[in-house]
């Protein structure tokens, strides 16, 4: 090779890996992220397959076993009606995790779309979208939630069933009111990235505006979006429990993690386990998702040498 006069430390290097395998290698370097991924996986497996293993009904009322602490018969104890908390948490965990992840997806997709459009357009559209974002930020959220759920609950219930309808409504409402920070982040990133030389180079090489965005700008803007997204998961799980608290969320007898916490609050002094287990589950899920986001950001950022 003609370039052999140039210093080349690359003679004995590991063979090139596919981008996904490389990303996985980098992800594994982040120990907490790996531990978190395992924890989250355990949680997901538990809520998905739990009911097939732990075959206790969530509605079995047993007044002889009220407010019992953890035991073999009831590993997480019982509540004031003698219902098994483990069974209720497994059932509620499906809803809480699904709401958190789905609402995050809605918020990130809407936020990225609006932020990208606002960041790329140089004219009235960009200003208009940012006004819209500011408008949404300034809306009083609670009255709006009340109104939206009051207006649409019955219609969606009729189409998708009581739990399905409420699920869709809650995901859309939580996601639809949490996209603004993502939109602002994405817009700010786009404004700076679109002027970079490599975007201009892509344009000079014949890349269409869409390709410039999808291939060159968006991947560079992903880091903050991933972090914002993982924070959104946590916020959505907590927002769902707020809604349950106000009687706006799922029906009162649907034991989401937030609902369990709410029910437990009057018995904290005599039955702390009732609040500790669902609270612990929310804590583990939220922390794990945040670490996973951290690990993903490191793994996807090729500039960082790890």
């Amino acid at each position: 090779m003609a370039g052999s006069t140039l210093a080349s430390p690359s003679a004995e290097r590991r063979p090139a890996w596919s981008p996904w395998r490389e990303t996985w290698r980098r992800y594994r370097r982040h120990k907490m992220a790996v531990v978190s991924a395992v924890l989250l996986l355990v949680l997901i497996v538990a809520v998905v397959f739990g009911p097939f293993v732990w075959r206790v009904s969530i509605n079995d009322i047993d007044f002889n076993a009220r407010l019992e602490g953890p035991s073999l018969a009831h590993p997480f104890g019982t509540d004031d009606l003698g219902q098994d908390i483990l069974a209720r948490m497994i059932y509620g965990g499906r809803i809480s995790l699904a709401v958190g992840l789905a609402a995050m997806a809605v918020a990130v997709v809407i936020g990225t779309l609006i932020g990208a459009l606002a960041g790329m357009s140089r004219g009235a559209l960009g200003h208009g979208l940012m006004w819209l974002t500011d408008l949404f930020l300034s809306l009083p959220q609670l009255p709006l939630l009340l109104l939206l759920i009051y207006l649409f609950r019955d219609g969606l219930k009729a189409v998708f069933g009581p739990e399905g309808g409420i699920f869709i409504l809650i995901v859309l409402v939580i996601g639809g009111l949490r996209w603004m920070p993502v939109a602002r982040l994405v817009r700010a990133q786009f404004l700076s990235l679109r002027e970079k030389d490599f975007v201009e180079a892509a344009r000079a090489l014949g890349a269409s505006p869409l390709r410039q965005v999808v291939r060159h700008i968006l991947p560079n803007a992903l880091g903050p979006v991933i972090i914002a997204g993982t924070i959104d998961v946590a916020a959505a799980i907590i927002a769902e429990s707020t809604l349950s608290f106000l009687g706006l969320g799922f029906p009162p007898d649907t034991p989401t993690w937030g609902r369990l916490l709410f029910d437990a609050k009057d018995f904290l002094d005599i039955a702390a386990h009732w609040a500790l287990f669902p609270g612990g589950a929310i804590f583990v899920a939220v922390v794990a998702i945040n670490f996973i986001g951290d690990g993903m950001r490191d793994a996807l950022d090729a500039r960082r040498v790890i």
Partner: protein
Amino acid sequence: MAPLLEIKGLKTHFSTDDGMLQAVDGVDIAINKGETLCVVGESGCGKTVTAMSILKLIAMPPGRIVEGQILFEGRDLVPLTSHQLDDIRAKDIGFIFQEPMTSLNPVLSVGEQVAEVLRRHEGLSHKEALARTVEMFKLVQIPNAAGRVHDYPHQFSGGMRQRVMIAMALACKPKLVIADEPTTALDVTIQAQILELLRDLQAELGMSVILISHDLGVIAEFAQRVLVMYAGRIVEQASVRQLFRKPMHPYTDGLLAAVPRVDADAHRLCHREDLDLGLALGEVVHGL
């Protein structure tokens, strides 16, 4: 034979808060197939805007091509939309940028970025494009080409990145390459390597090159014909030999005089014993 690219009366203006800025104000350029043309001039004289106007890479607005024709193989590029130009960019006219350090996307491997061009313009599959990319890397003399295509821009030095940029610009074997100060960001030894590479590639691929530079050393090294630009216009056009031997325009004369030379009979501007700043300054001004 009709020239490959002919620019007639090009005027590119920018609207600013203080009125219209005439960045390019009536430029005529013609370049034949296989020819090397250099455009030289000080910063801000309109060389880059002229080059970017050819492929409409200037920001519009505020920029606007007010007048003129850009005929590439007889076809006027000025009325084309950006979308139509996408098919010409890189395919027929390649562009090498000034800043190799920032002109590569940091989150894509360099191979992917070159392969993308090939997939876009030649419709190659992922595999074929990557194979061609390795070939291109060999052509621009990147050592261990097959291994290096998977690396990311931050793993390359400036000179190597410029080689990647050249591979990208030449991937589709364009008929014309516009190199906008391709060596300005590099140190002198690397400059020489890159220029030599460009010249070899030009001979090998038979393309025309427009080299834009403010460095007369680069021009002397590289060009056949030179255009001198000043304030948005072309003030002189000559062969390299003529230009350096007998500049016709006073501005060219000044430009040449501004280069410090080792071979000319230079004299000190000011001696320590008669340190007179006013005199020294006067001499500098006179020299220009």
